């Protein structure tokens, strides 16, 4: 008895101390809230059905979960300065509950709302207030060097916690079904563990990061996992069944094993059930929780995109990194030149290069350029318009002049639609250096220029037949123009505009007659192609 009195006195003293510290907090935060937070809390606590609070505390539900499940508004108990121990003692004080055995971790939220977790080094961490967690996050953001103008906070918790909660709630509804407070407090959905934690951390985080929580590409994620959550759900359910035997709710035991197991009742820790005659027992499906959740703090930016058009001036540069047997083909790639110049300016982890179509390594990309999209993963910084212009100049000013860039800009996810447009349906314009086995006549120049919207049939070129389906593809040559080259009777430039997907080289030399017609067959002689340049990739949007 004396113990109780003493502890009551101690807790009184604690409460006084807490309240006075709260008072200090209040005077500081006074301008934000209409009433002092501590008073709101005390009022809320005193309005709770005490016997229920006691019941819950005795089966190991933590104070925040108690308040939450009984419908208290989150801003009342989520003030960032309200510490764990303070909330706990306020509840115990008011309801006269004395916790006998130490429930380390909440049987519903597994310690999440008690701000207890195991970190990545397996150390047990017990935070006193949400503010402390916000500090850890802010440190991480700073360490990663992120430049942000907003953040989006996400919390993920094991499904297990929701299962705990719903089985507790249904137990409570049965047990207290006739009581008056039930309607008001329980039947409307209670705030979730995730939302409470987010609410508690958001304000201090906004202050520390000096920015607002919003729908942002910068994500802060608290990922909670629990060993038991990975266990065989069959195992869990069997354990579940075992304990449910004996409730008046008539949950039938389907499993004979469970009946046998039930006989060893003495094994069960009695503190998890409240045996009250005539009333159903309040249970949570798991035993004393012996392990808290594992928490990983993550902060990252979702993909940012830069789009533009590239030009390729070299006949020895591939579009993407091309390596065969550890040897690089060509001297460089468009992808690497552009990516390696942009990635450091964004301080990102990685990049992915996408282009609207492609050209061979020995084909130059000139004229308006080919649209491309560069995806940057986890950029620490979104480049400004000015920086983007600098990047463009830098790439265009590179000494080796292999690649050029136009219209570089940061875009949102609409960048993808721009890419898709350029792919299948569009027309492409080329200039080919052609040689024929006899002198070029004026007639030839004329007849070629008269061929408009000519359909050709191309069997899959032999050079790609090893990796593509053998098909016959219909393609359209929209127009052609021969440009004579002075001092040569057998070489000329062929300008042509074709449907996307047309193999130009094969259209010139005929590919063993497998492309019909071909320049050779039209001019009635042998034709060879020496050089090819892409001079335009037509896009609707421009």
């Amino acid at each position: 008895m004396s113990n109780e009195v003493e502890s009551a006195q101690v807790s009184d003293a604690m409460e006084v101390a807490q309240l006075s510290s709260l008072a200090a907090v209040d005077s500081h935060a006074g301008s934000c809230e209409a009433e002092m937070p501590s008073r709101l809390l005390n009022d809320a606590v005193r309005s709770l059905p005490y016997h229920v609070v006691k019941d819950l505390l005795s089966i190991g539900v933590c104070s925040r979960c108690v308040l939450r499940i009984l419908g208290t508004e989150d801003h009342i108990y989520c003030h960032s300065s309200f510490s764990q121990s303070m909330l706990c003692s306020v509840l115990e004080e008011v309801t006269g509950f004395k916790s006998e055995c130490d429930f380390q971790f909440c049987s519903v939220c597994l310690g999440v709302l008690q701000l207890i977790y195991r970190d990545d080094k397996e150390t047990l961490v017990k935070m006193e207030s949400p503010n402390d967690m916000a500090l850890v996050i802010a440190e991480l953001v700073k360490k990663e060097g992120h430049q942000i103008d907003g953040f989006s906070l996400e919390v993920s918790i094991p499904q297990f916690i929701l299962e705990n909660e719903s089985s507790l709630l249904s137990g409570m509804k049965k047990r207290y079904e006739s009581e008056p407070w039930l309607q008001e407090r329980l039947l409307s959905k209670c705030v979730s563990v995730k939302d409470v934690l987010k609410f508690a951390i958001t304000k201090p985080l906004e202050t520390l990061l000096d920015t607002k929580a919003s729908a942002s590409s910068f994500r802060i994620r608290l990922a909670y996992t629990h060993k038991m959550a990975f266990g065989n759900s069959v195992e869990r359910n069997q354990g579940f069944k075992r304990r449910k035997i004996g409730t008046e709710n008539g949950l039938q035991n389907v499993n004979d094993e469970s009946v046998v197991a039930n006989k060893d009742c003495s094994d069960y820790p009695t503190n998890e059930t409240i045996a009250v005659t005539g009333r159903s027992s309040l249970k949570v499906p798991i035993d004393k929780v012996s392990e808290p959740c594992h928490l990983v703090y993550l902060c990252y930016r979702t993909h940012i995109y830069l789009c533009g058009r590239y030009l390729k001036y070299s006949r020895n540069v591939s579009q993407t990194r091309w390596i065969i047997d550890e040897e690089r083909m060509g001297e460089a790639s468009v992808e690497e030149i552009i990516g390696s110049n942009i990635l450091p300016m964004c301080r990102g982890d990685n990049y992915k290069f996408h282009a609207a179509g492609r050209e061979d390594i020995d084909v130059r990309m000139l004229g308006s350029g080919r649209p491309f999209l560069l995806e940057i993963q986890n950029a620490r910084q979104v480049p400004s318009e000015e920086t983007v212009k600098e990047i463009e100049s830098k790439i265009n000013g590179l000494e080796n002049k292999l690649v050029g860039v136009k219209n570089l800009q940061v875009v949102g996810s609409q960048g993808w639609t721009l890419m898709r447009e350029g792919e299948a349906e569009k027309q492409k314009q080329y200039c080919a250096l052609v040689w024929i086995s006899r002198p070029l006549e004026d007639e030839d120049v004329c007849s070629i220029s008269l061929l408009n919207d000519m359909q050709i049939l191309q069997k899959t070129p032999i050079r790609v037949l090893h990796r593509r389906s053998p098909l016959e593809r219909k393609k359209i040559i929209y127009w052609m123009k021969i440009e004579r080259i002075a001092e040569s009777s057998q070489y000329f430039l062929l300008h042509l505009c074709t449907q996307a997907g047309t193999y130009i080289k094969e259209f010139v030399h005929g590919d063993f007659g497998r492309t019909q017609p071909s320049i050779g067959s039209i001019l009635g002689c042998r034709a060879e192609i020496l050089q090819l340049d892409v001079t335009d990739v037509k896009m609707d949007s421009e």
Partner: protein
Amino acid sequence: MSDVMVDHTQKLEETAVPNNLEQQDKQDEEQPQQSVQENAEYEDEELHKHLVPDIIQLPLIPPSAVEFNFASYFAPDFMKPGNDQYVYRHANGLCVVGLASTHLAFKDKGGITAVDFNVGKSDRSGMKVTGKRKKNAQHFESNTALCKVCTNGDSYIVRCCVKGSLLEVNERLIKQPELLHSSADREGYIAIIMPKPADWLKVKASLLSLEEFKKLRVLC
């Protein structure tokens, strides 16, 4: 060089792409500023400078697509005297097979009259190979018959020369056997075969290079 450039600019106007000009006209209607058209013209000129080649650098007769992209091999007297065939192998492993110019069939006075792919157990022209994995392709040995080439007096069996999957036969030869005369080494090819790397190495040892073949047949 600059003279050449001037000439080209003039020629470009004559043979210039009508579509481009039309587009420029439209642009003019929408944006009646001189500078837009000037810019477009300037860009075209800049582009054009890139396109025109340096003639001096170009060879009189360039290598053909086949010479450039394929390695040529020959099988003289394959299975029978006078049965000279070629195997053109692409860097990707695919082999185009056909009649070498020294094949006996070309010496026949009447010329080649017909090509028949219905030899052996099946009609080679009837098979359909589909998909990237080349499903339904028949696996043939190097001595498997591909087709029969008929002349007025005689007929000759053309064989694979390379063990592998038959991807395609040149069906045009059925209606146009004269392709063998006009260009047996291009439009007159017989078939395309895909050997496994190991099988290729085995057969390669028994084939001759172009140089060796020329010496053998005493060609220029």
